[in-house]
């Protein structure tokens, strides 16, 4: 794998098989912050890390699923903060490289009924644990609402009895759910070529 490599905008777009304008949009909206160099003036250009490529891939997938840009920015921020916090405990932890390992836990993003954001983490056939519960309105610039995170223990304790029919587990979606595997996207990133 090209650990420590960097990609230009055109290289990143080619690797992700996306038009450049979609990547530029995410940068201009502050969703993706180039790790290596940002375009601030004439003569400079954006350079992206492997982590940026994963962030682009996740953000583009979420945008394809019509998730608004505010929540997408919040998700990308959380992934960055997650990497920083894990690396305090596991030295040399790198989000992309570690999620691509065979034994990596499955980190997923879940959107419940189009209005609440959760993350889940699990391994193998064990039931995943769910975290979050952030209202999408909180992540919109025009609608200040009371901030609230549903505590993980509460979500996980309620999960078995939320929907008996099997739909909406474990976060308790009633009618619709979107689930995106960050681990799956990391594994499929074509970084080796």
């Amino acid at each position, binding site marked *: 794998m090209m650990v420590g490599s960097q990609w230009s905008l055109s290289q990143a777009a080619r690797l992700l098989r996306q038009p450049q304008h979609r990547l530029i949009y995410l940068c201009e909206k*502050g969703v993706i912050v180039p790790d290596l160099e940002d375009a601030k003036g004439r003569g400079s250009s954006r350079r992206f890390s492997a982590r940026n490529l994963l962030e682009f891939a996740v953000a583009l997938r979420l945008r394809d699923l019509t998730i608004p840009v505010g929540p997408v920015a*919040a998700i990308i921020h959380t*992934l*960055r903060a997650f990497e920083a916090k894990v690396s305090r405990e596991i030295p040399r932890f790198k989000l992309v490289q570690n999620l691509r390992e065979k034994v990596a836990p499955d980190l997923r993003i879940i959107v419940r009924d189009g209005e609440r954001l959760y993350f889940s983490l699990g391994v193998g056939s064990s039931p995943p644990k769910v975290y979050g519960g952030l209202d999408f309105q909180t992540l919109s610039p025009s609608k200040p609402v009371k*901030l609230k995170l549903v505590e993980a223990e509460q979500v996980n304790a309620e999960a078995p009895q939320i929907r008996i029919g099997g739909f909406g587990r474990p976060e308790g979606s009633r009618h619709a759910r979107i689930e995106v595997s960050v681990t799956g996207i990391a594994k499929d990133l074509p970084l080796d070529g």
Partner: protein
Amino acid sequence: MMMQLRRGSARSERHASDVWTPTSDHAVRELLDHLAQELAAEYVRLMKKAASAETDLDMARGREKGR
């Protein structure tokens, strides 16, 4: 023409730090960081558990070979 050039120039100088994102709000940022902390703690727990299981397996294999 001049106006168009100026507008184009301003656009090209637009930078991520100038735009609103949920993390521009300190309270939202703290909430997301708390969420990341919870996820990180669980991730570390799962990885330690996996490492411990791997060690147990290696020891069992070693005992098998020793017989």
